[in-house]
């Protein structure tokens, strides 16, 4: 039987140790989850087991070991609300400043130097395919994004209307100074009036909380915490489904938020409306009753096409935000091939865009379209990129998973047998990355997402536009004048980010995601 437990901020890790939670011991980690503000621990038979492959951090390859995560099994009834309107009203009454202070306390607990942050880091590192610098950056980002100033900055920008900072719309009914129209019934109302009309109050607008379900993806350890933060930043309630491939950062967030809440009772309704849980995707016993349009106002779904399709079907009747699988590409202008130094410089920039979460992020570059007069020039680019990726492998080592290695071998000995391959680490089981000059179009469905770059030669850079569509999230262009020249044409194909080469990961507060101002989609804009 899974049971709730209390863990307070002081002595947080001691409490976890006493409860046997988030401890690496005997290959089994007991993982707590949060259901409507209660920390629930795995006990008895009501558990779900996830098996993870452990990694040799020196080689970044699977070391033959496994460990098991044990999580409490949750039911839909643990996650939903019998009186959703009351829950929304309580959430709306939480001052945004109080929310930020609570999140600030939780952020401090998750900082890499804090005991919980350090524990999380050690646990995640055992199975993470991310090299230490990338892993540390991810965990730092998860903590830093919860920081009060960061949350306020994002909300103030993303929910802003006119010069009014977004957080005011969360806290109050904000008067809107905008030209208006009384409508066709305005003159009728005046004609029907028995006397002079009282002046109408100015229109006001508020961003009210919603109840949300977030189904997240495990391609990067920042996805689930980021999705949860969006729920929290809109001072909303709901459920965040953690991805099987990245459970622990979400579980640590649950622990931190729970522990921090005692010092911030005014923010308690937000915690009480929050669930950070896991169930197996497709578990009808949970999913069928959960996606109830009478309870939930928004669904956010990340991930693979089958998950998006499944959740989209379940969420019929609920406004759904979909972060479809997308990918990045790079457009390399002929200027990069004029001499060795230019090629070297551009290849290093390009490598950075390949490395984003080991190429598993939707913004990471998978394909390079190179403006090259002949195949030799395309090969020169491939060699320069291979060298850059080899250097990157020394800074942030990575190795393909066994499945990715198998996929690379399939490509090499099948669809891309006629391509020219440039290896980092060597072919076969030694492969660590590869640059492949492909003579023909390549089916991206079989891309292994493990630092493998497909190079396609184009005679003119604008020819590459034919390969762009809404499935491409990000295009990095080099050099800068060519980016400015191509920006409109690239954007016209539905690409969300047209960025300088090497800057695919750059983000800023209030930045749209997949063409959306996401927080603005997650609140209920209400006139009053």
């Amino acid at each position: 039987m899974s049971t709730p437990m209390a863990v307070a901020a002081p002595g947080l890790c001691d409490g976890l140790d006493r409860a046997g939670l988030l401890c690496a011991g005997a290959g089994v980690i007991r993982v707590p989850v949060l259901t409507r503000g209660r920390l629930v621990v795995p006990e008895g038979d009501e558990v779900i087991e996830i098996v993870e492959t452990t990694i040799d951090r020196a080689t970044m390859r699977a070391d033959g070991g496994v460990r098991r995560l044990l999580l409490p099994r949750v039911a839909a009834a643990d996650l939903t609300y019998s009186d959703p309107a009351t829950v929304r009203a309580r959430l709306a009454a939480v001052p945004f400043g109080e929310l930020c202070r609570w999140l600030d306390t939780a952020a401090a607990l998750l900082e890499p130097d804090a005991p919980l942050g350090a524990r999380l880091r050690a646990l995640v590192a055992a199975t993470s395919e991310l090299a230490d610098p990338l892993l540390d950056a991810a965990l730092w980002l998860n903590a830093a994004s919860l920081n009060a100033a960061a949350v306020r900055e994002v909300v103030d920008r993303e929910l802003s209307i006119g010069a009014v900072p977004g957080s005011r719309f969360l806290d109050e009914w904000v008067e809107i100074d905008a030209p208006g129209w009384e409508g066709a019934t305005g003159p009728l109302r005046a004609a029907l009036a028995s006397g002079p009309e009282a002046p109408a109050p100015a229109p006001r607008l508020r961003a009210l909380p919603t109840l949300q379900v977030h189904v997240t993806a495990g391609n990067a350890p920042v996805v689930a915490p980021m999705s949860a933060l969006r729920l929290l930043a809109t001072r909303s309630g709901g459920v965040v489904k953690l991805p099987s491939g990245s459970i622990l950062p979400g579980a640590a967030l649950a622990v931190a938020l729970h522990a921090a809440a005692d010092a911030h009772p005014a923010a308690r309704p937000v915690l009480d409306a929050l669930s950070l849980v896991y169930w197996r995707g497709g578990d009808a016993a949970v999913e069928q009753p959960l996606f109830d349009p009478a309870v939930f106002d928004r669904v956010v779904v990340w991930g693979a096409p089958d998950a998006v399709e499944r959740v989209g079907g379940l969420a019929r009747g609920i406004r759904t935000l979909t972060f479809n699988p997308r990918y990045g590409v790079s457009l390399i202008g002929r200027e990069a091939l004029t001499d060795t130094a230019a090629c070297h410089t551009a290849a290093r920039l390009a490598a950075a865009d390949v490395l984003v979460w080991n190429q598993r992020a939707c913004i990471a570059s998978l394909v390079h379209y190179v403006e090259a007069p002949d195949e030799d020039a395309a090969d020169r680019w491939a060699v320069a990129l291979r060298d850059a990726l080899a250097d990157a492998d020394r800074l942030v080592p990575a190795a393909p998973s066994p499945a990715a290695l198998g996929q690379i071998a399939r490509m090499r000995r099948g669809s891309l047998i006629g391509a020219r391959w440039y290896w980092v680490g060597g072919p076969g089981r030694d492969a660590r990355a590869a640059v492949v000059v492909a003579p023909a179009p390549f089916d991206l469905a079989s891309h292994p997402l493990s630092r493998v770059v497909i190079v396609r030669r184009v005679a003119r850079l604008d020819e590459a536009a034919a390969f762009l569509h809404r499935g491409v999230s990000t295009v990095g262009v080099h050099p800068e004048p060519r980016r400015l020249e191509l920006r409109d044409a690239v954007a016209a194909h539905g690409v969300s980010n047209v960025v300088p080469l090497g800057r695919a990961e750059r983000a800023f507060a209030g930045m749209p995601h997949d063409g959306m101002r996401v927080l603005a989609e997650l609140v209920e804009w209400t006139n009053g």
Partner: protein
Amino acid sequence: MVAATEREIHELGGQLRAAANAWAARDGSFDELAATRLRHHAIARCHAYYRATIPAYRRLCAEMDVGDTAPLELLAERCTVTEDLFKSYDARWVGDRDFAALSHWLRDVGAEAVPESAAAARDVDDWLDRLEAGRLHVLYSSGTSGKLSFVPRGEASWNAYRANGPSYLMYRVQRLGIDLSAMDGAVLGFRGGRMGIQQAGAELSRYLPTVRYLYDWEIRAETLRTLLTPSIVGAPVAVGHDEAYWRFLAALRRSSDADRAVWLFGAPYQVHRLCALMQAIDAPPLRAGSVVTLGGGWKAFEGERVDRSTLGALIEATLGVPAERVLEAYAMVELNTPLMRCPQDRYHVPPILEPWVFDDALLPRLPEEDVTGTFGFMDPTATSYPAFLATSDQVRLVRAPCPCGLVGPAVVGEVRRTSGAEVRGCGGILATVRA
């Protein structure tokens, strides 16, 4: 030099067929150890031959640091190719009618000379006809993508392709007491064409006086390509689809009326459909002594999987053919040597073939008693293309003797396609997208 090697390999192939015959006879004449030695020798010679004659294979060997001689396990690890090799050409060549490029590609992935005249072909069928005229037999298959896989066979490999199966399957036929002279053939397919599956009909017609087809016309590659283009899938083939089944049913009825048993060949989902139609009109079963052979995979292109036990029951109830007379083979266009399923639900690997099971990383698993993974094989009777192949099928391979009496490795249970989901992940995506 290479011609002598090719001859030697096919002589070894003949000896392997003889071994397979002895294996299938189950009369104690089969020497498993000797057959294994023979097969390994043939595989070693094939490797050297591929390396000498197939440019793509030679490049692969060079990159993987594999010379003319190498242990079997090393060849499995480094030199197996995949099904996609046979469609690794640029699809635009077909649309652009660039058959010079397509011929060049075929020469790169195969060992056979490609007739020069093929470069001047008007369309894919003309290209195939010109290859055929140059004694290069090219079979093709296709998945849902519409991109055709082309597998070339010169005369020697073609002869092996036609001879391997009968060398060990005839015992099964004899044990069923089949009298071919009293049977009609019925093929749920096209009368002709170069799809691998069509060859079953062609081979059947060698032994049976009358063979009827669901579609009494030859399927052309251009037609198939058009039919399978995603935007228009189903449109033209739907025309006359039902009528074809009704005509086919009438032909079955004529056989029954003439008191002739039927050898029915079809893909499971086609047989399922035929049975459903027969049930709907309460059609009488086939004459006693009829046989059903299933092939071509258990999934329709729509992804629906036909349940084996449901189909078995339906066949018995509708066609009147009991389970022991329902034959099934694991075959693919790249394989010269089909694996027959026995009554114990095992697909037996004839001693002609060296089976492999690969792990996720496409590394060969040790040949233990019971292994699961991706199926692969080395078929040393094919010299026209690299027949060291890792498939996309997930299997369980066991080596214990089968209660049916056959020895050697066998695939147990259902064969399932490998899922690519773990590799594709978030950015992975859009199955139809091309970059």
